[in-house]
C-alpha cells in the first residue's frame, strides 16, 4: 500500500509543467494561435509541428506551410462565419485546428470533430474541389455527436428504398466519391451511401452549400431527398430555431 502511495506521489510530482494554454484547453500539442478575434468567437489554431493524438496515437497531422494556410484560412473563415456564436455554442464548436495530411489509422480524412473538446480538426490540403462543402459536412458531424438523441439512424434508413443497404462503416467501402450526382436518386453523392450519419452530413452540407433554388429543384424531383432534407431541417430547427439554411 505504501509502495502504491509512493508511486502515485511520484507520478503526481513528476508531471511536467505544460504551461501551453492551448494544450491545456484542447489537449492537442504543437499548436499556435492563428486568429482568435472573430465575430462568432471561433478560435483558429494551426499546427507548428506534426502531432499525434488518441489513446493509440492513431490520429496524425502535419504542420501546413504558411502560404497554403493563408489561402485556406480565408476559405474556412468565410464558410464558418455563416454560423452565429449562439449556434456554435449550441453545437459545442469553438476551436478550429488547421493542419495538413490529417489521417486516422492511416486513412486520410477531411476533418475530425471532437464535441467534448469543442474542436474540429481540418485538413487544409483536402481535395480542393469539395473543400468548402466538406467544412460543413464536418460541422454536421459535430452536431450529430452533440445531439445524438435527436438524429435517429433507423428513422433515416427508412427514407431509402427497402432494398438499399449502407456499408458497415464509412471506411468499409471503396465508394467514397464526393461529386454530386446529376440524377440524385435519394443520395447527393456516392459517399452518402456509406453510412446513415455520412448521408446526413452530405445532405446537411449540400443544404448549406447549394443555392436555395437548386435545393428546391432537387426536392421537387427526388422524393427521398425531399424527406431527408425535411428531416435535417426540422432537427436543426430543434437545436436552433433561428438558424436558416
Amino acid at each position, binding site marked *: 500500500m505504501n509502495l502504491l502511495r509512493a508511486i502515485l506521489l511520484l507520478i*503526481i510530482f513528476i*508531471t511536467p509543467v505544460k504551461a501551453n494554454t492551448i494544450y491545456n484547453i484542447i489537449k492537442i500539442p504543437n499548436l499556435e494561435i492563428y486568429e482568435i478575434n472573430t465575430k462568432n468567437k471561433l478560435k483558429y489554431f494551426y499546427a507548428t509541428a506534426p502531432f499525434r493524438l488518441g489513446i493509440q496515437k492513431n490520429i496524425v497531422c502535419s504542420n501546413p506551410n504558411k502560404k497554403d494556410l493563408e489561402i485556406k484560412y480565408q476559405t474556412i473563415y468565410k464558410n464558418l462565419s455563416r454560423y452565429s456564436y449562439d449556434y456554435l455554442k449550441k453545437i459545442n464548436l469553438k476551436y478550429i485546428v488547421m493542419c495538413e495530411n490529417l489521417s486516422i489509422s492511416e486513412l486520410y480524412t477531411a476533418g475530425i470533430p471532437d464535441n*467534448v473538446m469543442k474542436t474540429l480538426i481540418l485538413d487544409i490540403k483536402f481535395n480542393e474541389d469539395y473543400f468548402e462543402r466538406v467544412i460543413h459536412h464536418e460541422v454536421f458531424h459535430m452536431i450529430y455527436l452533440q445531439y445524438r438523441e435527436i438524429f435517429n439512424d433507423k428513422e433515416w434508413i427508412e427514407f431509402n428504398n427497402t432494398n438499399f443497404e449502407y456499408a458497415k462503416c464509412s471506411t468499409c467501402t471503396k465508394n467514397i466519391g464526393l461529386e454530386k450526382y446529376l440524377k440524385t436518386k435519394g443520395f447527393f453523392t456516392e459517399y452518402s451511401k456509406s453510412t446513415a450519419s455520412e448521408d446526413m452530413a452530405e445532405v446537411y452540407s449540400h443544404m448549406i452549400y447549394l443555392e436555395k433554388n437548386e435545393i428546391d429543384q432537387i426536392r421537387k424531383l427526388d422524393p427521398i431527398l425531399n424527406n431527408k432534407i425535411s428531416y435535417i431541417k426540422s432537427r436543426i430547427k430543434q437545436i436552433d430555431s433561428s438558424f436558416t439554411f
Partner: protein
Amino acid sequence: MIKKIKASTLEKVIFIFLILLGIVTFTSYIVIKNECLFIKDYNKPNNINFKNPNNIAILSAPCGNVIIELYPEISPNGVERIKTLIRSNAYENIAFHRVIKNKLIQAGDLEFGKKGSLDYGKIGTGKSGLGTIKSEIDNNFNYTKGSVGLARTFKNDTEDSQFFIILQDEPLFEGEYTPVGKVLYGLEILKKIKDQRHSEYILRPDFINSFKMLNQ
C-alpha cells in the same frame, strides 16, 4: 620582551575583506530567506477607497494581502458561491495546490487541500459539499493578468469552490472559464507563492491564511 608586530598592508586588506564578506553573507542570508522582504503589503485595505466595497475580498497569502474585486454583474452565481465560502471562512488554511510560475495559481480544494489533512493523491479533486454550479461564460470578459476565475473539470457546469488567478494575460480563457473578479492590488504577492520546478502540483504548498470580504 614582546615585540610589537605591525600588520602589513596585505594583511589589513585581507582583514577588511573578511569583515566585508561576513557582513555580505549575513545580510544576504536574511534577504534570501525572507522572500517577502521587498513585496508591498496591502495590510490596511480599509484605508483604500473602493467603488464597490461590498464586492471587495481580501485574500491573505504568505507574503501579504491580495485585494480582489468580485464581479457579480458578470457571474452572479459564481460570485455568490465564492462569497458564501468566504463568509464561512472555508478557505482558511487551504493550499495553493496548483502553481505554474508567472502564469497561474489555483486554490480552493476544501476537501483535500486543508492544512494538516492534505491529501496529495487527491488534491484538486475535492468538493465543497455545496454542489456544483453552472458555468457563466456568455458575458464578455477579458482574461487579463490578475483575473480570477472558477476552476472546473473538463466539463462545463462543474464549478464548485476551486478558483484560479492568472499572472499573465490568457485570452483563450474567455468563454471557457467562469470569471469572478480581478486582483486590484497584490499581484506581486501571488508571484511569491511557492511553485515547483517540474510540476504544477506542489509538495508542501503555501496556504491561504484567510480569505475575507472587506465588510465582513
